[in-house]
């Protein structure tokens, strides 16, 4: 058993070869101020507090956790949409933590994002054609065969009618809008797309369409996804590796099947047992681990283990000692003083 510290340790269990993306001790704090007579600095909000993981080329890494656990901030920070407070981001071996200007703009060709809200993420005054072509305009690229042909090709690829090139976002349904977001994200053939809750705003019958589309595009273009979601069933379907976050920290990280079949962290147990299962007969003999209370404030996280205030296993040691991520089996890391393999599902 190797014990890894959260600082500077290279996360293991990536396939042979160089990772596409490596985060080391990535931290994002939002400064806060108390306004009394004069403005005084207050404790910062520790949205992301020292997370390290790798994304291999063509891999899907699922990031799960409750709202406020820092998963969206992690996604935005690794794309450099937010300036990291500490830690490093390496993309294809290059340190991009503080890239700016032209270097950052070139980098954006490689990394794109799909947003959660298909209503808020498309400019209502622009036609679909100009929304999807925006990456070309920003990067000053003329695609092969011309801009219009390229955009119509993309529209066809994501299952939209290319004749709708001149329509406006309000003329499309939620599922179709999310396809527009996908077309825009793949326009520059990126190597990594951060998908922030891409299907949670969609109807159940439409979710599967968009999930399948994302999988097909990944297969065709060999791109990697960081898939941020709170829906554990969708994450299990699409991810190769899954990372469970709580209050800005990684609680557990493992390959998909391992995480769902033999989770070690009490928080993962609670999350999995809370998912309502569409099987009325199973419910009677299903064990449910109910967590008490709410997420503590990330401005004043608990001492020791951040999960201890809601953990059914918390003991004295958890109050004083921060659990470091430990690799208990190859590729399965857990940050807990009392890990225990349990079948929850």
């Amino acid at each position: 058993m190797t014990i890894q510290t959260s600082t500077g340790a290279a996360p293991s269990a990536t396939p042979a070869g160089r990772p596409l993306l490596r985060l080391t001790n990535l931290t994002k704090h939002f400064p806060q101020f108390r306004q009394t007579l004069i403005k005084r600095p207050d404790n910062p909000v520790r949205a992301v507090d020292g997370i390290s993981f790798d994304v291999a080329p063509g891999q899907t890494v699922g990031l799960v956790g409750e709202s406020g656990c820092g998963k969206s901030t992690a996604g935005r920070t690794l794309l450099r949409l937010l300036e990291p407070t500490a830690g490093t981001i390496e993309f294809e071996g290059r340190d991009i933590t503080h890239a700016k200007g032209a270097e950052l703009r070139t980098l954006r060709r490689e990394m794109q994002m799909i947003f959660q809200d298909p209503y808020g993420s498309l400019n209502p005054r622009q036609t679909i054609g100009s929304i999807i072509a925006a990456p070309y305009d920003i990067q000053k690229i003329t695609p092969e065969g011309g801009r219009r042909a390229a955009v119509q090709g993309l529209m066809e690829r994501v299952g939209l009618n290319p004749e709708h090139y001149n329509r406006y976002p309000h003329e499309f349904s939620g599922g179709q809008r999310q396809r527009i977001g996908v077309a825009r994200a793949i326009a520059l053939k990126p190597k990594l797309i951060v998908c922030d809750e891409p299907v949670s705003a969609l109807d159940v019958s439409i979710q599967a369409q968009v999930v399948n589309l994302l999988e097909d595009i990944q297969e065709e273009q060999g791109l990697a996804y960081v898939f941020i979601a709170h829906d554990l069933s969708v994450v299990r379907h699409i991810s190769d590796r899954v990372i469970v976050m709580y209050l800005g920290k990684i609680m557990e990280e493992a390959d998909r099947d391992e995480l769902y079949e033999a989770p070690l962290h009490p928080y993962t147990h609670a999350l999995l047992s809370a998912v309502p299962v569409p099987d009325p007969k199973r419910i009677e003999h299903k064990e449910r681990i109910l967590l008490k209370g709410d997420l503590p404030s990330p401005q004043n996280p608990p001492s020791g283990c951040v999960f201890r205030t809601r953990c059914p296993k918390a003991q004295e040691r958890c109050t004083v000692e921060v659990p470091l991520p430990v690799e208990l089996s190859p590729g399965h890391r857990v940050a807990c003083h009392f890990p225990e393999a349990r079948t929850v599902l």
Partner: protein
Amino acid sequence: MADTSGATVTTSPSARAAGERTAYLDVRDLKVHFPTDDGLVKAVDGLNFTVERGKTIGIVGESGSGKSVTSQGILGLHRRTRARASGQIWLDGEDLMTVTDERLRELRGNKMAMIFQDPLSALHPYYTIGSQIVEAIRVHHSDTSKSAAKAKAVDLLGLVGIPNPARRVDQYPHEFSGGMRQRAMIAMALANDPSLLIADEPTTALDVTVQAQILDLMRKLQAEFGSAIIMITHDLGVVAEMADDILVMYGGKAVEHGPVNDVFYEPEHPYTWGLLTSMPRLDRARLSRLNPVPGNPPSLINVPSGCAFHPRCAFTGQVPADACRAAVPDLTAAGPGHLTRCHLEPATRAELFASEIKPRL
């Protein structure tokens, strides 16, 4: 909704005069239509269901299927100048469609209450949680003193599991977390011990761990007070846990209606099949690929002819003479208490279910 003019209300007093025993809530042929510039939107088009006290009905459907309009219709929340409502809503022997506005106001928040989806917009940001609960109590019990009502508000907040209720009662909605706001909404809905509770997507905005707490709470409260609950949701997992009966809506109509076990284990309608087989499930082996329902939910202005689901249905070829496109299927019995609205012959349907759907469930 509370249209007493009689023009669009079709009441049949004779049905009641016979003294027949009806369910606690009995909705009969409910229609809510909205005239718009683009045409008549038939948001709810002929809905029938009943709920007994202590029981829960789950109404499942996609956006635009009419599930929220139904619940607002029962509470009489549709503006009469905007909506045309007809049918009967019998609550404990009273037809809500024919009572006066005043009587409806007495019932609303008292005998029947609603838990809204988005607590941040349903709670008033300018008033403390406590004063909003006190208002809900004193509107119906004007003889209750302010201090007694406030004491009750503190009790209610404690009942729904808000820690330190005596301090929390004086806080504003923005000082509460999402889960606590939802609890406060439930506390407000329970203020007058309603016997009918309508929960419109009560947990959709919440995390799974908080959702589990809220569902647990609703079950406990139901066991204690014997309320009838209408649970509106798109999450089949939630209805599987909570409901005794399920009503699946599509395009403003019920397409399947039956006891929870029948709908989950022996679903009859192709739309229900699609819902159950399209979602990834934690309790099943992981599929290499999901089987989505093709197409998009229908627009209620242009509801497809015949069966509203036919453009997305994989089995229209099994029905002779293009009936799916031509005629609206009737809601017919597929088993005891189990209804479905589909043109497929029962034998064909059973065969399709056994060969194509059951292995995927």
